[in-house]
């Protein structure tokens, strides 16, 4: 019998190390929102409504340069297109949850909640946990720490020395998650190809380099796997 409460707590517990990276990330987003002249509640409301740091930063930057509303919103949405991929990937694991429950799970979907949960679901003992509630534990812990970071950032962000480069904790968190996910040659090929293409295509507008890299990685990994299984 899969214990809902145990699964939820296990998810929250597994996200503790990641929270270290979330607080600075929220902090940066909160500090930038407040830096644009918003009140604490304005910065926090912006963060809660969107809940996706990279697109928030891009939107704020464009607004400061007086870009038109459509450009600001579209740019933010393009940066968030990767959530389509996460949603497709994680949806089969969440189908036992009720529809309103799934709406909540959708709202808290983040890079970190996705990465941590999918790694756990793919572990050999993945079937022993209640997946939606594990994901809920991860997602709420991450959402809460991101919000705490945003409040801190909106209030004291301006006093943190930029030389600390706290934002570097974000790619480090992804490194910690992706390295164990590289298990065989197709996944290794996917990772190298995705990173290389994203690097080369970085100059593309709307952060499309990220999508180009990710799609290349997925297609090459899939092709390599098919080849290997045919031989």
């Amino acid at each position, binding site marked *: 019998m899969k214990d809902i409460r145990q699964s939820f707590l296990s998810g929250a517990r597994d996200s503790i190390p990641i929270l270290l990276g979330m607080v600075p990330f929220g902090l940066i987003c909160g500090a930038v929102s407040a830096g644009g002249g*918003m009140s604490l509640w304005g910065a926090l*409301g912006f963060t809660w409504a969107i809940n996706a740091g990279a697109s928030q930063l891009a939107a704020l930057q464009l607004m400061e340069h007086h870009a038109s509303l459509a450009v600001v919103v579209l740019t933010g949405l393009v940066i*968030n297109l990767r959530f389509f991929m996460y949603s497709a990937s*994680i949806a089969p694991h*969440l189908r036992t949850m009720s529809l309103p429950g799934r709406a909540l799970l959708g709202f808290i979907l983040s890079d970190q909640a996705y*990465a941590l949960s999918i790694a756990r679901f793919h572990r050999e003992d993945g079937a022993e946990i209640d997946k939606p509630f594990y994901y809920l534990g991860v997602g709420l812990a991450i959402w809460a720490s991101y919000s705490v970071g945003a409040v801190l950032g909106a209030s004291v962000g301006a006093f943190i020395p930029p030389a600390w480069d706290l934002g570097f904790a974000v790619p480090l968190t992804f490194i910690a*998650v992706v*390295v164990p996910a590289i298990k065989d040659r197709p*996944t290794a090929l996917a990772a190298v190809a995705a990173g290389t293409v994203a690097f080369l295509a*970085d100059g593309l507008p709307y952060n499309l380099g990220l999508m180009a890299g990710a799609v290349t990685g997925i297609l090459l990994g899939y092709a390599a796997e098919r080849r290997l299984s045919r031989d």
Partner: protein
Amino acid sequence: MTDTAGFWVVGALLGLGTFLIRFSFILIVDKVTFPEAVIRMLRFIPASVLPAIIVPAVLLHGTDGGPVSLARPVAALVAVLAAWKTRSILATILSGMGTLWLLRAVL
């Protein structure tokens, strides 16, 4: 200074759009069956999306200021080794940030 009304409109529209993107497949998963090829591609999503975020963040978008600093790539390499050896998220973040600060202090 950002225009306040515009700020809220952007927050609402970008928030709603992002939610719909996130919810999309979670909403329809019961109603459609995906082709086998799509299901096999799903396995490569984490291994592809994350490196596509990591590599430019490490090599191109440093907050260093200066020209190309070596501190970030070296710190990321140390973090990769730590992740590989320990499989611990905390150890990876701490060794990466530690290396970054150490290199900044001595370089």
